[in-house]
């Protein structure tokens, strides 16, 4: 069997339609919304702020805490049980690792920057959407960053390399999903996970395609941040 046409009719390297907005939560220090297809990520950043409990404080640098949360009726299939799960904890951790290389919190010892990402509606690619939204919100909070991380999944469905998988493709029996986060200006990869099986050559191709698509997402991020300042009356 070969995968002739994607389930939603996109080209194989076509990203779902994206939209982004910065500064959506007035009480947060920084905030952003990122939508890709039917996946929506809302992110609020608080901090740098006082860190308690005190044993977590690091006198050398501020720390980053990420909270990833999928809302109960956000996805396909079963209701997600509210509150943390093993999955959300893992994703919070990989998100932290994906964002931290771009952040410089040395000027804020003993403090914490809290990143909260909620996903009210999901259609696969949530960790990527969450990282993309978090990067915008961190920039909106005025933090020092060397780059603006962005993330996208690539993968395999049967014999084809596809970019930005939706839930149907993600859960397809013969496939593979590879979320990739990059720092678009240096090309560093800060997140690379894989779920499924793929050949060595296809893996290389998939990562290449993801990095290429990441640059499109970076443009959307950049525009959203700039637009947040352009308005007025």
């Amino acid at each position: 069997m070969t995968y002739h046409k994607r389930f939603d009719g996109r080209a194989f390297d076509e990203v779902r339609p994206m939209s982004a907005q910065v500064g959506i939560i007035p009480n947060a220090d920084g905030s952003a919304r990122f939508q890709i297809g039917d996946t929506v990520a809302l992110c609020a950043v608080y901090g740098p702020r006082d860190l308690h409990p005190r044993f977590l404080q690091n006198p050398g640098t501020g720390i980053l805490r990420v909270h990833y949360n999928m809302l109960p009726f956000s996805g396909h299939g079963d209701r997600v049980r509210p509150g943390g799960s093993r999955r959300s904890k893992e994703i919070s951790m990989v998100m932290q690792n994906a964002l931290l290389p771009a952040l410089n919190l040395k000027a804020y010892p003993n403090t914490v920057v809290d990143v909260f990402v909620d996903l009210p509606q999901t259609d696969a690619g949530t960790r990527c959407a969450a990282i993309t939204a978090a990067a915008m919100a961190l920039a909106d909070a005025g933090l020092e960053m060397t780059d603006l991380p962005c993330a996208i999944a690539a993968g395999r469905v049967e014999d084809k390399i596809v970019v930005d998988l939706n839930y149907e493709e993600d859960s397809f029996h013969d496939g593979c999903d590879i979320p990739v986060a990059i720092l678009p200006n240096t090309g560093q990869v800060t997140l690379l996970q894989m779920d499924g099986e793929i050949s060595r050559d296809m893996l290389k191709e998939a990562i290449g395609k993801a990095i290429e698509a990441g640059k499109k997402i970076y443009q959307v991020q950049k525009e959203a941040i700039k637009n947040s300042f352009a308005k007025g009356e």
Partner: protein
Amino acid sequence: MKDEILMENKSIVVPGEVLAKGMSFLPGPGTYRRDDVIVAKKVGLATVDGKVIKLIALNGTYLPRVKDKIIARVIDVLMTGWRVDINCPYSAVLTMKDATNEFIPRGADLTKYYDLGDHMLCQVVNVTSQNLVDVSMKGPGLRKLKGGRFIKVSPYKVPRVIGKDGSMVSMIKKATGCDIIVGQNGVIWINGDPKAEVVAVKAIKKIDKEAHLSGLTDRIAKWLEEAK
């Protein structure tokens, strides 16, 4: 290779954006050099000043600097002074010695001088590498602030709230008849007739929102005229 500037002057840039190429340019505040290019570290307005590429940050939290006049709030009474909140990730300490010229006897009740929740205009006298902050009440105009209301704006918008030589704040003072003190940490004290206070708060919130747009003073003057 040719050295060139890769952004428009006074345009808004995002972290990671390449601002200029070539070793003949120097990275100013808010930027850094990566290989032969100069890159933005924050969201802000990028400007070219001769050979230096500068970035004026547009948002962020307050970081205390020595000599800043700020508005603080007492959050705890210590053995030898007061712990005050200065609208930043770190709290500051006001010691007895820096608080008053009066003689405070041993074992005196410090809440007689400054109680929990009291606000004061004070000055930063020391900041350590770990951001431990000392403030003082000794200096012209430094005092306890009684009555009125306190609002917060982004510390990066404070220069716009004050205006050139205090033009903006004195305009609001004149229009509303309120007493206004603007702390460098983004806390603003407004004291006057309650109705006038509301107008002043709205005016300041408007400045906070539109600080990066040009023609601000004229717009605020017009708005105050209409609000009367």
